[in-house]
């Protein structure tokens, strides 16, 4: 392939940042699925709530407050949703979960459209994150003038930190231990006197909170209109499935894979437009449980 080092670097970075936003959304989705066994089609709508809250708070009170307020608000919304709706569906077929959350997604999207209108609301990048970084200053192998938006690199960092935090929570804390045990065998934990229901509720809240973080940092990138939720839902969902339902590592891997694929095929419209579906089909046919999916889950 005829590609300069400059072009390769730009495509690589673009793939990474496209993947980052997918990962941030897929992370909550796969966490909720892996722990609660719930297929949440309303996750895109949670992201939608997050960006509308974020842009409203940002425009009225500044980005700092948006960052402080939005994730906890989403946490609370997640908990209310779990108590009010999702918990009724723990023992119902996955099909029903998909359907009810899909319905919820439509309702939330239309409600937000009603309140804010169908037109895009501009979400400006805060001044400290605005501007571009001169990559050639840092990477000596680049020739001449190569730049990248600062905010998108921040987004990559946020994504990495969030992934690391979730991993740490699950693998280094007692809470995480119980959750992981609950994923294996919830009934056994109940017998041992662990209130697994309360923990499930918190996990759902956490999933929503990650959507909140994604909204605060992703909003200036995806922008803010009612269609955004559904537009992100399908790719994020495909990423969760490609990675293996319930596998955090799989979601990260699949997110970056899809991001890279979209970035490197950009000049070739025919491949670019179907690449995500092509990858999904090939991976699921070759490796049914997804890249890092646990054996037996949903196979």
């Amino acid at each position, binding site marked *: 392939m005829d590609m300069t080092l400059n072009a390769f670097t730009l495509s690589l970075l673009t793939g990474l940042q496209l993947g980052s936003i997918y990962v941030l959304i897929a992370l909550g989705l796969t966490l909720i699925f892996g722990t609660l066994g719930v297929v949440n089609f309303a996750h895109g709508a949670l992201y939608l709530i997050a960006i509308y809250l974020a842009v409203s708070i940002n425009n009225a009170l500044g980005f700092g407050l948006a960052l402080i307020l939005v994730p906890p608000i989403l946490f609370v919304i997640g908990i209310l949703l779990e108590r009010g709706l999702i918990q009724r569906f723990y023992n119902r077929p996955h099909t029903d979960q998909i359907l009810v959350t899909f319905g919820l997604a439509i*309702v939330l999207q239309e409600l937000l459209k009603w309140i804010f209108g169908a037109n895009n609301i501009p979400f400006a990048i805060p001044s400290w994150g605005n501007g571009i970084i001169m990559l050639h200053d840092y990477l000596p192998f680049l020739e001449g003038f190569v730049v990248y938006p600062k905010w998108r690199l921040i987004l990559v960092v946020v994504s990495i930190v969030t992934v690391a935090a979730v991993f740490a929570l699950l693998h280094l804390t007692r809470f995480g231990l119980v959750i992981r045990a609950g994923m294996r065998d919830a009934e056994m934990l109940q017998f041992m006197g662990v209130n697994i229901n309360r923990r499930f509720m918190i996990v759902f809240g956490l999933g929503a909170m990650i959507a909140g973080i994604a909204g605060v940092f992703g909003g200036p990138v995806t922008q803010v209109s009612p269609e955004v939720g559904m537009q992100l839902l399908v790719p994020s969902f495909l990423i969760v499935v490609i990675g293996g339902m319930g596998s955090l590592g799989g979601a990260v891997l699949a997110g970056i894979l899809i991001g890279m694929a979209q970035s490197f095929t950009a000049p070739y419209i025919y491949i670019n437009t179907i690449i995500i579906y092509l990858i999904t089909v090939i991976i699921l046919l070759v490796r049914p449980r997804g890249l890092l999916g646990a054996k037996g889950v949903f196979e």
Partner: protein
Amino acid sequence: MITQQNFWQHNKAVLMFALVALTMPLWFPLIGGYSGLDTKIMIFCIFVVGFDILLGFTGYLSFGHAAFFGISAYTTGIMLKNFSDNIIPAIIVAVAAATLVALIIGLLTLKRTGIYFSILTLAFAEMFDSMAMSMLQKWTGGENGLTGMPTPMLFDLKMQGDTVFYFCALMAILLYYLAKRIERSPVGLMMKAIKCNQTRLEYTGINARKYKLLAFVLSAMYAAVAGSLMVVYEPFVGHEFLGWHQSGEIVIMSVIGGVGTLVGPMLGAGFMLYFENVLSVSLGEQWLLVLGVIFMVVVIFMPGGFMEAVARLKKRFFTTIDGE
């Protein structure tokens, strides 16, 4: 030996449907319907009945049935435009093309179950949609849709107005009857056994895959007939026919009506199209919101859809009588 009474007993549902369908031009306008919409309802009845053969009988939830609907519609359009304005060869070629695609996709996807199957079918359908929009737009017309077909003809008969309605209604009745026959046949029982417990079925030495594939291809053929009739009804193909909204709409229709009952999904199709095109006008811009709420309420409280509501009412009615 089938006596006359037996025939009535056996085919009560089909005859009832035939009565409702064929008299539709008489009663539908009374509730705000119109002649374009009744035809579309008949076409979607075919689509959902076929979908129920897959989802209702075998329990496989496809998110990609728009693929067969759309491929058939495009094929029909291209046939009408370039080959002949007679609909018979167009429908036959279109259904054959969609069946072939269904066979290939079925062989690939039915190895998987549950959510993986759903996602695979979704991915295939979205791939076709993207292709129709992009690399195939020379043939499909892309975003603008496929236009410029002549008025479809059934030999010397123009397929317009009432003619096209009765043609679609008769097809719907015939295909509903066939679906009923399949349901009662040993093949239908096998399909339903897949839904109950596939593993157990396979222990008995029965090749479940064969029946799954049959159900998948049959439902795709129904979708293909519906897709082809859409073009007979209106010589136009939009890329939306292939999109996941179309697949999703079929799922919603089936669920609202009552999955696995054959007649339920048809009720659901009628309700959805009526709601979208007649009731929506009085609801204005928020009609989609209301539809979303209705859909959620049905899924939460009435997983069996309208048919469950009917059954509950029936039960209540009959228990009261028993009590007396």
